[in-house]
């Protein structure tokens, strides 16, 4: 891990209701880098994003480990007041379903203007002018009129554009995009992904995408972190991972995309299974075609490869 990392997550472990939802998740992110968290639904991808946004309170989950943000220090265990100073300004998030992530009782303009006024201290007129500019940037036509629209009056694609405008309003350093397109039509999906990538790149911001679609991840992200049941099984540069996956699970994910031709990551065989009955060792062991006797007993550590920016957790890699 380089010392210039924007975000360093180390051994992030999260328990909820007696189950270990995240198991020693380790990842790092350079400034301006785009990272994809990939895995089946229930792998804990979204949980990582919400935990790193400080949206999970002590009542929701027990969180251990470290997460350091450049210039801020340790994030985990910060009081809510410090989190709310960080959120919107340095960290921000785009949600899966923009329709339900916008408050139905306020106009979208008001929701954007509030962020600008509260986080940047802009005056009412300055905030409105800035909001108009942001709406135009994210491709909302007739922006002036759309500012006074309520969320239900906009299409799904427009709602997600509004969310992008709100999330990027204060030029955050790190943007979490939690399945930003899974509620949208396929034709609009690509537009929104491109919008998010363009906007984060021009601002020099980093972005963590939560995706269940390996194909989408391969097109849009610099690096990929593959998760299985809350464990990082493999991570590295997108091209390398896709060219030569070393973890059996990554290989299966890739074959899903290539062979079946579907864009969704259907579980290779069977399902992730209950978190209450996970093996002590590698959680993929039960479904792994290359499993050794030790796999279920002993957890393979996430070892950085000597050659380049890559890490793998497997006793019997490809």
């Amino acid at each position: 891990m380089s010392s210039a990392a924007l975000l360093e997550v180390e051994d992030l472990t999260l328990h909820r209701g007696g189950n270990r939802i995240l198991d020693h998740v380790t990842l790092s992110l350079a400034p301006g880098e785009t990272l994809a968290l990939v895995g089946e639904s229930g792998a804990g991808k979204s949980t990582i994003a919400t935990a790193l946004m400080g949206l999970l309170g002590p009542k929701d989950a027990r969180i251990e480990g470290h997460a350091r943000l450049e210039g801020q220090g340790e994030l985990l265990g910060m009081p809510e007041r410090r989190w709310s100073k960080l959120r919107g300004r340095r960290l921000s998030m785009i949600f899966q379903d923009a329709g339900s992530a916008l408050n139905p009782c306020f106009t979208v303009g008001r929701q954007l203007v509030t962020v600008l006024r509260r986080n940047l201290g802009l005056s009412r007129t300055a905030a409105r002018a800035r909001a108009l500019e942001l709406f135009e940037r994210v491709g909302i036509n007739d922006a002036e009129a759309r500012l006074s629209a309520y969320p239900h009056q906009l299409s799904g694609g427009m709602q997600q554009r509004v969310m992008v405008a709100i999330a990027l309003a204060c030029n955050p350093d790190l943007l979490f995009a939690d399945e930003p397109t899974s509620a949208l039509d396929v034709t609009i999906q690509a537009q929104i992904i491109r919008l998010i990538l363009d906007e984060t790149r021009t601002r020099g911001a980093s972005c963590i995408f939560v995706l269940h679609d390996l194909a989408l991840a391969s097109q849009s992200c610099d690096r990929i972190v593959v998760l299985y049941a809350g464990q990082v099984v493999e991570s590295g540069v997108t091209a390398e991972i896709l060219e030569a996956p070393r973890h059996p699970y990554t290989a299966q994910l890739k074959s899903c995309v290539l062979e079946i031709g579907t864009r969704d990551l259907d579980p290779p065989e069977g399902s992730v299974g209950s978190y209450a009955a996970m093996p002590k060792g590698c959680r993929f062991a039960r479904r792994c075609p290359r499993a050794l006797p030790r796999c279920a007993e002993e957890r393979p550590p996430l070892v950085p490869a000597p050659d380049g920016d890559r890490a793998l957790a497997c006793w019997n890699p490809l």
Partner: protein
Amino acid sequence: MILRGLVRIGQTLVVLLIVSFATFGLLKLAPGDPVQLALGAEYSETAYRSLQREMGLDQPFLVQYLAWARDFATGDWGRSYVARTDIFTFAVLEALPVTLTLASLSLFFAILIGVPLGVLSAVKKDSIFDAGAAVFALTGTAFPSFLLGILLIWLFGVKLGLFPVMGYVSPWQDPVTGLYHMVLPALTLSTYFIAMITRLTRATLIEVLEQPYIAAARARGEPRWRVIWVHGVRNIAMPLVTILGLQLGTLLQGTVLTETVFSLPGLGQMITDAVLSREYVVVQAGVMLTATLFITINLLVDLSYPFLDPRLRAR
């Protein structure tokens, strides 16, 4: 939206018509013949007939109803022979303001205390505070209001001497003294509603706080108080107003007991006295007035929906 509003107003008028019909029927079903009552023990057949014609009682039921409805709508409600006053003046100008003041002050207390209590319970869910508020709410609902009234009179009025025990001063003539006299009765009446609003606010807010737009509001750096009091509370306004509108009937019923305990000259006391002295014309006026009040308030609740939830406005 305007069309829907007009339809609702039309419906309200139909309901009012039905209520007035039933109320008029009440008078007809009441024991005793008004002509006989007016004439006394001895009268001739011709005197009976002429008075009956004079009072319009020889007409068919429907004609009588229409005449009565016309009189009612024009404010000609007849005279009370017990109180020796014009019923309209007595009911609408004297008793109604008392009841309205009592009811609105109670509602004000209920919202002022109930909503914050419910919000805090929802935010501190499963804490000691929440449990305490739940106990308070259950006690408030189970406790008979007249008993509470007597307790409040004893504690604040007699023991501490902080508030006047009874009597009524019109808040329109002397706002300070008037409201001062209303504090204890309004508190008594509002207990049940404080409890109800607390529970309702808690339940609806817990649901709202789990919505994605709450997480999203937090994710863009809105401070906790704004997330709860602006994004949360704004979204519980509609269920709250709906239930309040429906429960207003209970509130109006509650005024009867409260007015009796605190001897306030409101509609409740007017109806009670009228029932006891079998003055059906006054009962009828009271019932019509209460029903009209209830129906009007529910109409207002319905008409307020588009303002409370933008999704109900016409696109």
